C-alpha cells in the first residue's frame, strides 16, 4: 500500500497555514469576544469531574499590548501542545487552562478579557485565539495587571482549593508595571460592579495569592530593567526573568512541576525538558531563568553547591589539580 505523501503535503498546507498566517489572521477578533467580555462576570469555575478528578487550575494572563504580541502567537502556532506535553511529562494529572488577556485600562478598548477553564486542547485553543490582540497600551509605563489579580481573587472558584486546599497557578506575561491600585471606576466600567474605594495592588495580590501561586514572567533581559525591581517588591522570587519569550511554556510547565514536587530540582527539570525534545540551549536558558525560584523552594541547594569535599563532592579532582597538583 502506498504512502499518501502528496495528500499529506496538501493537508499540511491546509493545517500549516496556521504557522504561516500572520497574527492578525490567527487572532481574527477585532474587538473583545462577547464570551470573553468580563462585564457581569460571576465566577469562572475550575471543577473536578469523573474524567478529571484532580483538576489543576492554571491561568495564563497574556499581555496583549503592542510589545507583547509574540507570546500569544507562539502559543497558538506552536507551544500550546508542547505545554500540555510538558505538563504530562511532569505528571500533572488534570490541568485546566484559563486564558486571560490584559491591556491598559486607561486607553484600551478591551483591557481585560477572560476565557473559561478548559481541559481539552481544542477548547483551550479556542479561547486563546478568541483573544483580541488590541496592541494598545503604551505611554504610561504601566498596564492594568492589577485587574487580573482582582478578577482571580473575586471571580474564580477552584475545586482544587475548596476540596483539596491546593492552590492554582497564575502565569502573567508582561514588560511594564502594574498601576498602584485597582481603580473603582475601571471595575465599574469593565465588570459592571461597584467598589467602595480603590484597592491597592498589594492587597489584590495578597487576596489572589490565597488561592493561586502568582508568577510574573518577563520575556527577555532587555525588558527586565523596566519593571523587575517593582515586581520583585510585589512578588519576590516569583518574578521570572526569561531570556526569550520562546521559553514561556517550558518555564511555566517547569514551575508547576517544581512547585508540585514532581520535579525534585533543576537537574530533573533539565532532564525532563531534554526528554521532551527541547533544544539544549532553550533548556539551559529555562534552567537559568528558574534558578532564583528553585533556590527558594530548596534553600539547601546553594549550600550543597558550595560544599566542597563534603559528602557527594565530585570524585574526580578538578582539572587544575590534575594539571598542577
Amino acid at each position: 500500500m502506498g504512502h499518501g505523501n502528496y495528500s499529506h503535503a496538501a493537508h499540511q498546507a491546509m493545517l500549516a497555514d496556521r504557522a504561516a498566517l500572520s497574527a492578525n489572521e490567527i487572532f481574527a477578533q477585532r474587538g473583545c469576544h462577547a464570551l470573553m467580555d468580563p462585564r457581569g462576570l460571576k465566577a469562572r469555575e475550575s471543577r473536578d469531574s469523573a474524567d478529571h478528578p484532580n483538576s489543576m487550575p492554571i491561568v495564563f494572563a497574556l499581555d496583549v499590548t503592542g510589545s507583547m504580541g509574540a507570546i500569544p502567537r507562539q502559543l497558538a502556532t506552536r507551544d500550546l501542545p508542547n505545554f500540555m506535553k510538558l505538563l504530562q511529562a511532569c505528571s500533572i494529572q488534570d490541568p485546566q487552562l484559563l486564558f486571560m488577556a490584559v491591556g491598559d485600562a486607561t486607553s484600551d478598548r478591551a483591557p481585560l478579557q477572560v476565557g473559561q477553564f478548559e481541559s481539552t486542547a481544542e477548547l483551550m485553543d479556542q479561547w486563546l485565539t478568541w483573544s483580541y490582540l488590541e496592541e494598545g497600551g503604551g505611554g504610561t509605563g504601566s498596564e492594568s495587571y492589577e485587574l487580573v489579580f482582582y478578577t482571580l481573587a473575586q471571580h474564580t472558584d477552584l475545586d482544587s482549593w475548596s476540596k483539596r486546599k491546593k492552590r492554582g497557578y497564575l502565569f502573567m506575561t508582561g514588560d511594564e508595571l502594574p498601576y498602584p491600585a485597582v481603580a473603582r471606576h475601571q471595575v465599574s466600567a469593565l465588570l459592571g460592579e461597584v467598589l467602595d474605594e480603590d484597592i491597592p495592588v498589594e492587597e489584590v495580590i495578597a487576596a489572589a495569592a490565597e488561592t493561586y501561586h502568582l508568577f510574573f514572567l518577563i520575556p527577555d533581559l532587555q525588558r527586565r530593567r523596566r519593571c523587575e525591581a517593582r515586581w520583585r517588591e510585589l512578588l519576590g522570587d516569583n518574578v521570572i526573568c526569561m531570556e526569550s519569550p520562546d521559553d514561556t511554556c517550558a518555564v511555566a510547565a517547569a514551575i508547576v512541576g517544581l512547585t508540585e514536587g514532581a520535579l525534585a530540582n533543576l537537574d530533573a527539570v533539565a532532564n525532563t525538558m531534554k526528554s521532551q525534545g527541547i533544544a539544549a540551549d532553550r533548556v539551559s536558558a529555562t534552567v537559568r531563568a528558574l534558578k532564583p525560584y528553585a533556590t527558594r523552594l530548596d534553600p539547601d541547594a546553594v549550600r550543597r553547591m558550595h560544599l566542597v569535599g563534603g559528602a557527594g563532592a565530585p570524585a574526580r579532582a578538578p582539572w587544575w589539580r590534575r594539571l598542577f597538583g
Partner: protein
Amino acid sequence: MVAAPVRLSHGVSRRALSLIGLGFGDCGKGLFTDHVCRRWARDSVTVVRYNGGAQAGHNVVLPDGRHHTFSQFAAGSFVPNVWTVLAFPVIVHPTALLVEHEHLVRQGVVDAFARLLVDSRCLVTTPFHQALGRLRELARAANAHGSCGAGVGETVRHAQHRPEQALRYGELTNGSRLRDKVAVMQRSLLEEAEQALADAAFDPRAAPEWALLRDARVGERWIEQAMGVAARVPGCEPGRIAERLQGSATVVFEGAQGMLLDEWAGFHPHTTWSSVGPAAVRAVADDAGIGDVKHFGVLRSYLTRHGRGPMPTHDPGLDAVPEAHNASDGWQGEFRRGHPDAVLLAYARLCAGPLDGLFVSHLDAFGANQPPLRWCHGYRIQGDGDSAAFHGSSYDVDRVQSDLIVGLRRRGDRDLDHQTTLTRLLSAARPAYEREALRDAAALIRRYEDVAGCRVRLGSFGPSHEAVRSLAGLDL
C-alpha cells in the same frame, strides 16, 4: 453504453490487461505499469485507475535516475502520450493532485493534467474527511489500522452514511453550490468527531486536526484550490471515458493496494476501503464497454507490509534488502519484509479468481551478500490456547497434517466476522519453512507458479523498466 467495437478503426485489435497486487501492496505495480506502457507506446495507451485513491504510492524509477511515486496519476505517465483515467469509484483528492503535478513537473513531465480524465461521479476527499480520518486513527492508539492518513476511508464511509452530502468531482465547477456543500460537510464531520471522539486521548498530532475541523477559513481556501484543479481537468461524463478507452489500442487497469488489503478479502480491520480484485476491474470495464480483460497478479520475490496488521513471515533479518522509496515514516508506520508465503499467495489467488499470469519484481534479491529467502509452505499455531480457538473451526483453515495450516478459506463474499477470525489466526501463526533456503529466482518462480496456477510472465531484476525480462512471454 455503446457496444465495444472489436477492432479499432486503424485495424489494431485492442488489448486490455489489469495489474493486480497479490500482497499487501508495494509489489511493483508502478514498475510493471511503466514497462507495459512503454512496450505498446507506439499506439495509444490509456491507464485506468479503478480503485483506491490518493493513498496509492507506485514507484517508478527511470534508467536516468529520475524517480516519482505515482499516487493519482498513472504510473505510466513518464511515457509520452499515455493517458490517465480516474474511473468511478476512485476517490479523488484534488489538492493532492496539485502537489503531485508539481512534483511531476520537476521531473520533466509538464503535461500530466492535459492527459488526465476524471469521472465526474468520483467522490472527492476534503480536508475535513482527512482530519476526521486521522483523528479516528489517533483515537485507536495501540489498535491503529495502519491508515495512510489520506482521508480515503473517511470519504467512503461518510458518503455511505450521508449520501446526500457526498461531494462528487463533477460538482467542483459549481462554486456557489460547492460552498454550501462544503460548509454542510464541515459541520457534519465536526459533529461526528465531537460525538465519537470527544474523549480521545490527548495527542499533540490531534490538536491541529481539531483546529482544522473548527476553522471557518479552511473551506474557502480548499474550494479555491479544488476549483482550480477542476478548471484544468473538468469532470467528464461516463460516455467520454468509454470513448477514450474504446479508442485506445492498449488499456491498462492499474490496481492500487493489494488483494490482501481488499475491503472484503483482507484481514479485517487492517484493510482499505476499496475493492482490489478482477471483479472491480470488470465493473469499470463493463461501464466503459471494454470486453475481454486479461488479469495479471503482481508480487515481489518476498512479502512486504507497510503499516499495521498481521504478517506471519515477517523477518527483521530481511531489512538488509535495500529499499529506495518505502521508508517507515509518516502516517503509515513501519515498513516490514517477510519471506514468500505460500498460504497468503494461495489465499490471494483464491480471492482474485483465475489469473492469466504473474509479474514478479525484485527477482534480483538472490545474491551472495543478500539475506536468504525461505519458502513458507504452512503455519503452525503458537501456543495451546490459540490453537484451541482455531482447531475447532473447520471453515477457516485447510489442514493437510493435523497441525499444519496450508490454506485459508473464505466464507461468503462479505463476512467481516470471518475475516476478523483470519486476522487472529494470522497473528498467532508461526511460519513453517522448507528446510533449505530458496536457491535462486527459478526456484521461487516454480513455487509461485505451482501455487497460483499460472505462469510468471514478466520478472524484474532491477529498479527500472529496462530490468524487466519476459519469462514465459506476454502473449497479448
